[in-house]
């Protein structure tokens, strides 16, 4: 056989294998589409200058992924596995004060295979969260411009969550809604505590004039957050909202506030889907996660999204 013939045969084998797998699972053939974070001089400012807060966010990253993997593998039915084992694993990881964010695909390998599209949506929104903290902590002279640029970069993604306000109350009234918080109140309150930390630090960070003041300003919030981890606030009836905990940040950057609140609501929806027996199979859970993400959360659905509200409606605990 000629060399070119051998090459063509090799290419044909690769193409055949690819087509075989594509046809075998065409319903699950989806692109990876990982995108690098917005590159700027302020990247990793939080990690380098306010590691005390950064390490807590690294712990939060573990918590979400570890919850989803355990909900999936236990069918959302095993209370001790979630409330005791998984939650304590998360608390133990947080207690290590991790200097780097964990590899979430190593924490939740099954969930990542089930719902990569949703995970990539989380990853991009979490990168936006991180960017806003980095900007707040950095010595970037024009923070408004930096936030405008990073928000524009985020909104340019096909995985961007809508920056419009969504009706969270309606998004919490699906047939399976509240399943997670009813069955696993401790872990739910722990998740809401993460979300408290993520949004409560914005106003103090922005108000403090320098790094020393910022470090001092976030300490009371960190103390409250750690108290919540010890004694999860099970009395809360709804997730924390940015406008309630950082009103100045929400007023100045309403699109960011909406994105983060929508992100946190999507976390609650997916927790409910993974818990509820109304969606008994992994395939049914995957289909519902993708339906919710595609129909109600991605900015690409803004023109037809029935959950977008035109006037702000406050939520209260």
């Amino acid at each position, binding site marked *: 056989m000629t*060399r070119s013939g*051998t*090459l063509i045969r*090799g*290419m044909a*084998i*690769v193409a055949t*294998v*690819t087509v075989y*797998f*594509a046809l*075998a*699972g065409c319903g*699950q*053939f*989806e*692109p*990876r*589409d*990982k*995108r*690098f974070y917005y*590159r700027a001089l302020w990247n*990793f400012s939080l*990690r380098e200058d306010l590691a005390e807060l950064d390490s807590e966010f690294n712990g939060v990253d*573990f918590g979400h992924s*570890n919850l989803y993997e355990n909900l999936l593998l236990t069918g959302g039915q095993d209370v001790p596995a979630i409330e005791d084992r998984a939650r304590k*694993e998360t608390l*133990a*990881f947080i207690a*290590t004060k*991790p200097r*780097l964010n*964990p*590899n979430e*695909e*190593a*924490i939740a*390998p*099954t969930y*990542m*295979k*089930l719902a*990569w599209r949703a995970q990539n949506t989380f990853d991009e929104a979490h990168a936006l969260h991180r960017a806003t903290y980095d900007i707040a902590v950095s010595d970037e002279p024009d923070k408004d411009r930096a936030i405008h640029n990073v928000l524009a970069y985020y909104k340019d993604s096909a995985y961007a969550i809508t920056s419009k306000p969504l009706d969270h109350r309606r998004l919490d009234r699906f047939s399976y809604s509240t399943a997670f918080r009813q069955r696993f109140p401790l872990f739910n309150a722990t998740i809401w505590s993460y979300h408290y930390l993520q949004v409560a630090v914005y106003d103090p960070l922005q108000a403090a004039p320098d790094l020393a003041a910022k470090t001092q300003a976030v300490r009371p919030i960190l103390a409250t957050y750690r108290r919540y981890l010890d004694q999860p606030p099970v009395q809360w009836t709804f997730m924390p909202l940015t406008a309630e905990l950082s009103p100045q940040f929400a007023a100045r950057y309403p699109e960011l506030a909406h994105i983060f609140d929508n992100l946190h609501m999507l976390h609650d929806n997916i927790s409910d889907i993974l818990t509820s027996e109304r969606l008994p199979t*992994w395939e049914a859970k*995957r289909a519902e996660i993708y339906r919710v993400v595609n129909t109600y959360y991605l900015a690409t659905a803004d023109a037809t999204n029935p959950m977008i509200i035109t006037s702000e409606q406050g939520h209260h605990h």
Partner: protein
Amino acid sequence: MSTAGLRAVRWLLRAWLVGLALPALALDHDNLDPNRPIGMEDAYAIPKGEIGLEGGVRFNDRRQGRTNVTFQPQIIYGAFANTQIEIQGDLFTDPHSIVGANKSGDLHLGVLYNFNTETLILPAMAVRVEVDLPTGVNSKGVDTQLTGILTRSFGRLRLHLNGGYTLLGSPQGQERPGTYRAVAAVSYPLGYPSSFRDTLIASLYTRQSDLQGQRNHTGVEIGLRHQLTSRVVLDGGLGTEFLGPSGRAALLGTLGVSVGF
């Protein structure tokens, strides 16, 4: 292990320690690229927009013949969605003795395209196309290589299969006009649930010899990738070839660093 081999190991350790002192300027330690630190890769490209600078030093203490040391500078760029392009130019300490496609100083250009992410049914799949331009010592003709890559996970353990074919543009003397290569590898993140900085990798490979009439090089490698900082990954690997021609590797070793930004 020969005296030359020991010298090479000592030199590599010194070079690696110097690397530790570099300022924080790397890539996800769980994204596996060829030679970082062993000759296998996973099916994923680096994220769109990321730039990676990778460098390594590899020694090959052969059963017969002189120990070879290779310097492996490389730039990789996430040029498009699910696509990385690579520019590399290996430099060998004994360039005139090299046979096969990869000559010292050749300019190596590659593209890796990832078709899909892994799902509950499908493995992740990718294809790599590479060309070696004859810019190096004793190099003639443009060599081309096509590799298919599959990655499938089982819990935290990931299995990687690489199968490639290299076509020499202008084979010299007894050089084969084309050679195949097959690798089966596994990777596993160490430290769960308390630490996520290290990935262990092991592979079994076989590749056709560069010269006609000789047996396949068949060996094993093991390596570790360590996330040092948000941007820097260190790697180190060892291997040996238990079948092959008389000049096959008795001990292979690699130390490297990757910087992503």
